[in-house]
């Protein structure tokens, strides 16, 4: 019984997450500026990545396959979900900082810029 529950939960998480990943991709096409795209990238990597990995782990745990395959994919999915949670925001942060400071991509539609007012260069 609990297996069926896990299977349904895992597969619905995966489908939800795949749709979120698609929405993130659409956001990339719709937003016109790098600093706006950062947010849709977060949708793509957290909503589309971490939830999908957790769902995949739950789904694998419920299957009737040999143990080494099951627990291996479960462990790999959980550990890589944790790594994505640590690594992906750091990458976004350091990239946006470099883009702002080097002037490679200017945050054009902006109603107020406290960073410029602070004069932190």
């Amino acid at each position: 019984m609990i297996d069926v529950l896990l299977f349904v939960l895992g597969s619905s998480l995966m489908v939800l997450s795949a749709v979120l990943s698609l929405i993130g991709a659409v956001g990339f096409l719709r937003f016109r500026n790098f600093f706006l795209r950062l947010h849709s990238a977060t949708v793509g990597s957290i909503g589309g990545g971490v939830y999908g990995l957790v769902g995949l782990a739950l789904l694998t745990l419920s299957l009737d396959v040999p143990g080494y395959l099951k627990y291996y994919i479960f462990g790999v999915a959980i550990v890589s979900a944790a790594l994505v949670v640590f690594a992906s925001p750091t990458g976004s942060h350091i990239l946006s900082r470099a883009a702002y400071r080097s002037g490679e991509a200017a945050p054009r539609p902006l109603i107020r810029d406290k960073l410029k007012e602070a004069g932190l260069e």
Partner: protein
Amino acid sequence: MRSRGALEELGLVLSILLGVLLTYYLVRADVVSLTYGNIPLANLYLRAVPDPSSPFTSRSPEVVTSVIWDQRGYDTYFETSVLFIAIIGVLYLAGLGGGQGNSSVSTVIPRVIAKILFPVIVAVSVSVALHGHLTPGGGFQGGSIFAVAPFLYLLVFGRRMLEGKGFRANALVFARSLAVFLITVVGSIVLVVGLLTGVPAFLFQNQPKPQLSPIGYPAYVVLPWGGIFLFSGTLMILNVLEFTAVSTGFTLALVIIDTVTGGRE
């Protein structure tokens, strides 16, 4: 995009034509084919390498790594030497010295995250290298994964921190040379023993060969608490040595390149 001359257009067309011809002959001569199975040579390797009763066995389920270190061991040794010589060349071109230690991408966030990621990468790379004879991977793959960890520290903290952790240039050169030397020793020790005792043996020989040579490395040890520990003769030893050589070599190359290109103002 600037306008292209007629000659360049012709060149592009010719190169695409080259690709098309290549594909056509590969498909025509059945080099790439979906319907046939493996060629006999592939079947020979796939059946003989994991099979303990075969004369060409290496007692390892991983066909790729065992072909690399057993059946073509001599070749792989020289390929490692090519990497060694390339890094010596880099050292010669660079001339160590100069270069300031600090880094520009370092706020508090990458500093902490790099510290968290470093042990994960090292653990993964050691696992890849140690199980090269059981699962996909091996010395080279593990070494190139390992090189990412010091590179991360190099990017975030600069060269000083890396030197504080023990990754000094002299130590790296020493470890690398020692590993390459030990690969030679491991490869030739069976030959030396054979010469001394008067039985025939080969360079980079792993398991004993039934009609040709009666000596060789053992394939596994029986553990005192039951069960066996399979290390497939030379395969695991050579993987560990290659892991040392490649990881220190890449770290050295990255440190040198960072020093040379970062030191100029």
